[in-house]
């Protein structure tokens, strides 16, 4: 693996108070600047991995290392949720300003960085709008701008585009890759879409359920920038087919057990 690890999970278990074992023996590493997807069915613990990495949950056993768990108070980690999670009472500007504001930065000092982040996600000119006045795709753009505004080293994304239509999703995939290439943050991207994970990532980690664990790794060795041409290319479809084949071998025994 190239580069120094920014995230590392070793033999991580997570059991909830309800007795449910969400994760068992998870080993996972993400290098600085790397784009990695976590792919798996609902309930396989993908989101739990993100929450552990963000420091929002504690592992029951094993070791988790990530910038969010360090003592450095700088906002090195950004989190994008499945819904845009904007504050409905605040303008787009105030929403994007939030991470800087919580770090004690004044509105005036933050202004340029907020406008830059909005520009980067294609929302220039919308800073005075309220979330209720935006479309779902634009709200997600605002959410990504809020994540980018601190110039994080690590971006955690929890199925951010799952609720969007396909056109909007493709556009946001393209724009996310552009931001990633411009800013060089490492990304851990949770999705249940094979197509999306292959399009975006350098590596796809496949997770299995009950208990949640990483069961396979597929490397997508294709150059960036990737755009519409890549999405049409045979190489993209071949990579998707390879991932589908891996998923098929993994799920076969599960089906037999269920039968």
């Amino acid at each position: 693996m190239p580069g120094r690890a920014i995230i590392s999970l070793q033999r991580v278990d997570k059991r909830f108070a309800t007795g449910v074992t969400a994760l068992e023996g998870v080993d996972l590493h993400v290098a600085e600047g790397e784009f990695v997807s976590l792919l798996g069915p609902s309930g396989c613990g993908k989101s739990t991995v993100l929450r552990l990495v963000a420091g929002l949950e504690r592992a029951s056993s094993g070791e988790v290392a990530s910038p969010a768990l360090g003592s450095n108070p700088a906002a090195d980690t950004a989190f994008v949720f499945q819904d845009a999670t904007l504050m409905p009472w605040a303008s787009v500007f105030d929403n994007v300003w939030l991470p800087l504001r919580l770090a004690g930065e004044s509105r005036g000092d933050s202004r340029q960085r907020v406008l830059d982040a909005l520009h980067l996600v294609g929302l220039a000119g919308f800073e005075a709008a309220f979330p209720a006045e935006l479309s779902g795709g634009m709200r997600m753009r605002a959410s990504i701008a809020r994540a980018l505004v601190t110039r994080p080293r690590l971006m955690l994304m929890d199925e951010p585009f799952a609720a969007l239509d396909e056109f909007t999703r493709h556009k946001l995939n393209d724009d996310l890759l552009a931001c990633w290439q411009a800013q060089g943050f490492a990304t851990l991207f949770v999705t249940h879409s094979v197509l999306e994970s292959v399009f975006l990532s350098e590596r796809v980690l496949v997770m299995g359920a009950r208990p949640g664990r990483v069961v396979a790794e597929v490397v997508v060795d294709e150059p960036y920038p990737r755009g519409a041409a890549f999405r049409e290319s045979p190489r993209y479809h071949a990579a998707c087919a390879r991932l589908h084949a891996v998923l098929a071998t993994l799920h076969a025994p599960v089906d037999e057990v269920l039968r």
Partner: protein
Amino acid sequence: MGAQLLHRASPALCLVGLLAAWEALVRLAHIPHYTLPAPTLVVRTLIDNFGSLAGSWWFTLQITFGALALAVVGGVLVASVFALSRGLEHALFPLAVVLQVTPVVAIAPLILIYVESTTAALLLCAWIVAFFPILSNTVLGLRAADPNLRDLFRLYRASPWQRLRLLLVPSALPYFVAGLKISGGLSLIGAVTAEMVAGAAGRNTGLASRILEASFRTETPKMFAALLLLVATGVAIFWSFNALSRALLGRWHASEKQ
């Protein structure tokens, strides 16, 4: 365009029609004014007696808004304490429910015995009625913050004060405003009810005691005149809190979307 105008004017037209029918009924059927005064007579009585009624009106307003202010302060403070400690809420919420379910008419005579100052007793009665909606709505509102936003505030290491000011208070605002709308009307009802009970002792100058006093003398038009002031006050409270709600929530909350 014409239909829209009619739609807008329909409440006023309805009211005017009703008043006209009332006026016609009284005149045509020769109903004596001590049984049912005509609307014009009520207005004339109000104008003639405004000097003496205004003092009572002011007293009732003071009780109403005093009780509402105390309900807001008390409700928000207690709700904040409940939000900080589930244990305290568990222990104390039943007490708040007892306050809420006790009819104020039933408890007012006791309060008048125990509380020396009549004004204070009236305030307490109206406060009992107005307090609960604000408390329960604010408790609900302080819990209503989006769990993902809470996580975001944790991720960015927000201080407790930042979390309160930037997340919990704005999340609770629509709930608080809904409670305020209910309590605004209730505090007037509480003030009048308590005065009704206290007014029988003849120690008071609120509008309710003027209604009682006029009823003893069969001055029916005066009863209606005082009632008119009460209704106007209630409607004004309702309108102003609706306007406040629109001003605070209009741009972002679904309850104020057209």
